[in-house]
């Protein structure tokens, strides 16, 4: 069922997406070590092909739901980089005004419908957004990203069943990076594939894709998104990938065997895609330019953040309610 990607434009879009996500998150890491990004941060470094492949297959109006490890998804739907880093740094320019932080990046106008920090919680929410698309006949599709560890929580099961019986236009994407925080997923499931081996429970076919191969991801994404848009119901996709860094903050990730880390670093989605594009005859200078542009976007965003003020103290008690305030009494 895989659609072959052909257009060079699309391939450059995929490459640009991955490069932007990579540079952006590397900078976030540096800024965390510098103490500018505060609290915590969960990087998707190494997982960029999933974000780029899906983002390129989505239409404007489609809805992305992701986890705390969703900086890249939010960025690639179009959220401005300065506002994303600003949010992680708790500055006034933050996309959520500094109230959400790294785990709650959201850009509703761009269809980035939130990053959720409770494992599994956003799966039923994504299903609900897809349900509204059906009722309102908007033609939107919801795409919901989550980790391998999320497949063992109750909300996963409820959401999959619910989406399946109502045939909702939602695509559930498990980014299987082999680890939860520090514990390997293989230690806590009795099957091989945390998502794909559960698909039949919901009347769905098991779908596995190489999550480090942007073309393969994009082809899979196109198929399942179009299936959903046509009324064919939900899909559950398992994308095999790996995070280059630890789980969060400065976790060195020492619980992972050296050889495993090395093998995956060698199978870097950016590196393999760059080689593939070169082989396909795309000029190195074109790719260099994408990289330069991405780096200057990151630098600009960083500058914005460095210059940004903290949030106005008055905003502490705004936006609990639709009236803009947080009053609970008269």
């Amino acid at each position: 069922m895989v659609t072959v990607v052909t257009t060079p434009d699309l391939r450059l879009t995929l490459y640009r997406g991955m490069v932007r996500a990579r540079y952006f998150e590397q900078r976030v890491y540096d800024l965390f070590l510098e103490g500018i990004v505060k609290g915590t941060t969960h990087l998707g470094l190494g997982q960029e092909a999933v974000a780029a492949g899906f983002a390129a297959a989505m239409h404007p109006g489609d809805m992305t739901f992701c986890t705390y490890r969703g900086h890249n998804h939010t960025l690639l739907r179009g959220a401005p980089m300065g506002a994303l880093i600003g949010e992680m740094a708790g500055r006034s320019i933050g996309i959520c005004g500094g109230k959400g932080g790294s785990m709650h990046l959201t850009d509703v106008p761009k269809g980035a419908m939130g990053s959720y920090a409770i494992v599994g919680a956003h799966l039923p929410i994504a299903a609900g957004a897809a349900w509204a698309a059906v009722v309102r006949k908007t033609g939107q599709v919801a795409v919901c990203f989550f980790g391998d560890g999320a497949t063992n929580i109750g909300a996963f099961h409820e959401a999959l069943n619910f989406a399946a019986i109502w045939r909702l236009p939602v695509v559930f994407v498990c980014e299987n990076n082999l680890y939860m925080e520090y514990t390997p997923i293989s230690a806590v499931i009795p099957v091989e594939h945390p998502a794909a081996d559960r698909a039949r429970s919901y009347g769905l076919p098991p779908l596995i894709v190489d999550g480090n191969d942007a073309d393969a991801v994009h082809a899979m994404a196109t198929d399942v998104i179009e299936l959903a848009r046509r009324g064919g119901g939900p899909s559950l996709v398992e994308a095999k990938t790996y995070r280059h860094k630890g789980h969060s903050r400065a976790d060195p990730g020492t619980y992972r065997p050296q050889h495993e880390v090395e093998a995956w670093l060698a199978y870097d989605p950016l590196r393999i895609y760059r080689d593939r594009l070169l082989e396909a005859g795309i000029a190195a200078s074109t790719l260099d330019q994408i990289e330069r542009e991405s780096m200057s976007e990151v630098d600009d965003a960083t500058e914005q953040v460095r210059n940004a003020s903290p949030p106005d103290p008055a905003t502490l008690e705004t936006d609990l309610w639709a009236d803009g305030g947080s009053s609970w009494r008269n």
Partner: protein
Amino acid sequence: MAELTYRHAVARGIAQEMERDPTVVMIGEDVAAAGGVFKTTEGLQARFGPERVRDTPISEQAITGALMGAAMNGLRPIGELMFSDFLMVCWDIVANQIAKTRYMTGGQVSLPLVIRTANGGGTRFGGQHSQSLEAMVMAIPGLKVVAPANPRDVIGLMAAAVRDDDPVVVFEHKKLFAMKQDVPDGEIVDRLGVATVVIPGSDVTIAALAAMVPVAEEAARRLKESGVSAEVIDLRSLVPLDTQTLLGSVSRTGRLVTVEENPRLCGWGAEVASIVAEEILWDLDGPVVRITTPHIPLPSSAELEDLAIPSPERVVEAVLRLQ
């Protein structure tokens, strides 16, 4: 004007809003084809069709998650949780997601949704089907809470909840489903956050909610016979809370008794009592008394359950002790 039960008022309130606004939809377990286990949603599916009134699996996280996602994307969904006790099964979705998302996204996300649920005891169902959980919801920033005490208010507060752009939990009290009242014809819409003085009085303020309102009223009638003039306030809405009506009354009467169906600790009575102790302490002529169930789950035995839930006798006794 026609006589209406509390149970039927639920369906009428929902129908009023579904009629008016095509984005209002309703889901829940057995709510559609069967009309609800408490028969509160009878006729709605027939009237509004299977797409707008729909049965779900037993998946409270999916139900409440669906409400949230749908509310983000242009609907005004109503979801039923069959018993309020089941709020605990989906508490993360309700209290961590629905409640916090507007604030955490800096106001980007609106969640105009309603969770309706059958609350309270007195039905011999035991500890997992009898809880009064309005205070648990009240304690979560980002959730509004109403608990109507009569058929008219069911309609008015339901309409207010559906029209509100924030998430509202509507507690329908199981013991009141059979209650009848003459209710005006035509549209009924209330504002959230308005308490009602159901019996005016001058010696003591009795604040109550839902099924405790008739208990407080009965107590007030008996107190009258003892020469005590009790003012009974039906709070109706816990968030927003009508502190003006409440504090005004207590300032006048100098005494406050709260009547709660929930267990002892950290109920809405504690909140109300604390507000009084902080803001109008010098107006008090006597201690603030909270009447609650003991700090236990509700027992199922009729005799024990009746002992546990506040009764007019207990209210009368508490007030008389205050005089």
